[in-house]
């Protein structure tokens, strides 16, 4: 059986440039990420900016430690990951909680609205609880029109209160991933 072809279309044009503009305005200079289709447009905007550093990670927990070190050195990060990556970060998030490090994490959600892949469901459904259990504040966004304002608010919250804040970009906002083989 051949590999199904992803027909997922990144709705990048609708919000990724506006979110990138928010990161610029808030002086975010480091963008560590494990890629996700939903983040594709934002990643590309950050990679094209010579004043920003986009860092590809092998696992999401690297990004938590990277952002913590960068903040101690005076640089703001926004960490990009898919909901499955939240589980890879759990113990590393203790660094943010214990040291009261600000950080905004943008999480593209899987395992919910219109999900095709059953393997995405457990971590997707557990994501908000796991984040809250580790002391991360959670904002969920369903409407792409509201997303830039939500990211701006998350950055203000994080850096004013020395808190990690996750913004969950719901699967409804992103559009559910479809595969060629799906009915």
């Amino acid at each position, binding site marked *: 059986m051949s590999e199904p072809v992803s027909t997922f279309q990144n709705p990048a044009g609708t919000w990724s440039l506006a979110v990138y503009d928010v990161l610029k305005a808030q002086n975010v200079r*480091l963008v560590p990420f494990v890629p996700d289709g939903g983040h594709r447009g934002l990643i590309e905007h950050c990679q094209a900016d010579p004043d920003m*550093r986009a*860092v*590809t*990670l*092998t*696992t999401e*927990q*690297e*990004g*938590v*430690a*990277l*952002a*913590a*070190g*960068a*903040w*101690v*050195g*005076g*640089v703001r*990060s926004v960490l990009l990951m898919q909901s499955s990556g939240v589980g890879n970060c759990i*113990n*590393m998030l*203790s*660094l943010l909680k*214990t*040291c*009261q*490090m600000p950080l905004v994490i943008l999480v593209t959600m899987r395992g919910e609205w219109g999900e095709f892949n059953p393997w995405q469901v457990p971590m997707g459904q557990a994501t908000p609880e796991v984040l809250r259990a580790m002391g991360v504040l959670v904002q969920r966004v369903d409407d792409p029109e509201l997303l830039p304002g939500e990211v701006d608010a998350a950055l203000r919250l994080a*850096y004013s209160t*020395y808190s990690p804040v996750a913004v969950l970009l719901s699967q409804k906002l992103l559009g559910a991933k479809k595969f060629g083989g799906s009915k």
Partner: protein
Amino acid sequence: MNAPQLERRVVMAQLLEERGSLLAVTGLGATAWDLASLSDSPHDFPLWGAMGGAAMFGLGLALAQPDRSVVVFTGDGELLMGLGALSTIAVTRPPNLSVVVLDNERYGETGAQPTHTAAGVDLAAVARACGFERTITVREESGIPALRAGLHAGESPLLAVVKVALTADPMTLPPRDGTYLKNRMRAALLGPTAIYE
């Protein structure tokens, strides 16, 4: 191969001689106690947890402070938990970051169980395969001065494995409060107004 003879605290003391503004990060456990036995400075950031994160914390610090040199002291067990970091560091290529593994081939805090380096896993070879252009394995005291010089200058990141003896050193604890460690280093690097940001 004979058992390593180098003593970890002697090695760290020699590497930190005349350190100037060199920033030191440690992993959890023995390397944190080692640093605390030698230094308690705003230029130190000993981690008490976040196992597997020390090298990446150092990378973040090095990227944010390109005019300073950063050294991460960590153990073989700590680095093995986050081995992917070696590839991320090699690809990111910060010239001002060194990772020094004080490799006693044991999980020293938990009963001296062997780590994979005891079975031959070569962390310097892993770093070379990831793309580190500067790697060094030190087994004798004669190798320390060159390594010490390498911490202060280079055009690419450095990974050093220092094979050290399994020793029972007195436990010297650094400050436990992470917010203190954070604010202390931020004030030293960014000025006293940093804590009002």
